[in-house]
């Protein structure tokens, strides 16, 4: 069964880079959102199982999305993917409900590790 994935990042290049780093044979359906508001809309439609979330976005940023998701029951797995790789950023998003923090540029092996660790990939 295809995993429903949402990639949230305002940079189309970043979204492409993430897609490139995903495990090649993974059975997934990908949706994309270019800002927090769009991401929340798609989430609320109830079709997202795994969300890759960027932090720095205009209007509603990654932290904003996490807040909404937390308030609304956090019905999907959130992995934050960000260039802001400071320890404090990592701590903050984990406290807000993300299960993992992956630094940019995304390392395919590192990504697979995380997915396996949390049982998303077998």
């Amino acid at each position, binding site marked *: 069964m295809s995993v429903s994935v949402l990639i949230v990042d305002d*940079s*189309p*290049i*970043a979204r*492409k*880079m993430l*897609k*490139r780093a995903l495990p090649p044979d993974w059975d997934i359906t990908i949706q994309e959102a270019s800002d927090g508001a769009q991401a929340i809309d798609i989430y609320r439609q109830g079709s997202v199982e795994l969300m890759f979330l960027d932090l*720095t976005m205009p209007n509603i940023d990654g932290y904003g999305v996490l807040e909404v998701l937390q308030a609304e029951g956090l019905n999907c797995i959130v992995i934050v993917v*960000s*260039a*802001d*790789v*400071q*320890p*404090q950023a990592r701590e903050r998003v984990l406290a807000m409900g993300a299960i993992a923090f992956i*630094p*940019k*540029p995304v390392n395919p092996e590192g990504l697979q590790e995380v997915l396996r660790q949390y049982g998303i990939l077998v």
Partner: protein
Amino acid sequence: MIKGLNEDQTAALQELANIGMGQAGNSLARIWKEFVHLSIPRIAMVDASRLPDLILGFVGDTAVSASRQAFHGGFRGEVLVVVTAKDRNGLAQLMGFEGQLDAAEREEVLLDIVNILGGACVGGIAQQVSAEIGFSAPSLIGEDLDPLDVINPEQLAIDTALSLEVCFQVENRSLTAHLVILLPNNEVGALADLLDQFLCTL
């Protein structure tokens, strides 16, 4: 869109700069053991004659200290770091010095910062596009300068430059350092090629 780069190349550069600046901020945070705010990188193509105004626009009307470092290889250019003067003492504490710094120590700190930031940021971008980059020793531009005096357009060897700027802000010590990466317009082509190669891999 930036003159000399097409839409895709500009988008790629924006994201790569984002990543590079993030790595630079991370380097600083590890050295300084403080949280560092990063602004979103600003990219622009600027006439050499407007560079002083650009710097003024970045830092505001206040006395600054500045240092620079050149890089070469896959693409060539220079990195500037501009620090507001009132932050000098905060800077010293962050770099692990106690009390007041003498002139030599202050200079050393400014040179270390441009070396760290330049290395992380330019190095980060270079790594992404698989370019080999080397760095020259950093040098001091000056202390207690008027922002308009940081760059002297008369002495420049170029007409236009590609500018990438990010502002690093340390919360607790209210320190602000602006990193400006400048590429002469005749190097933009080399960068564009590297960006194209990178885009092909996506």
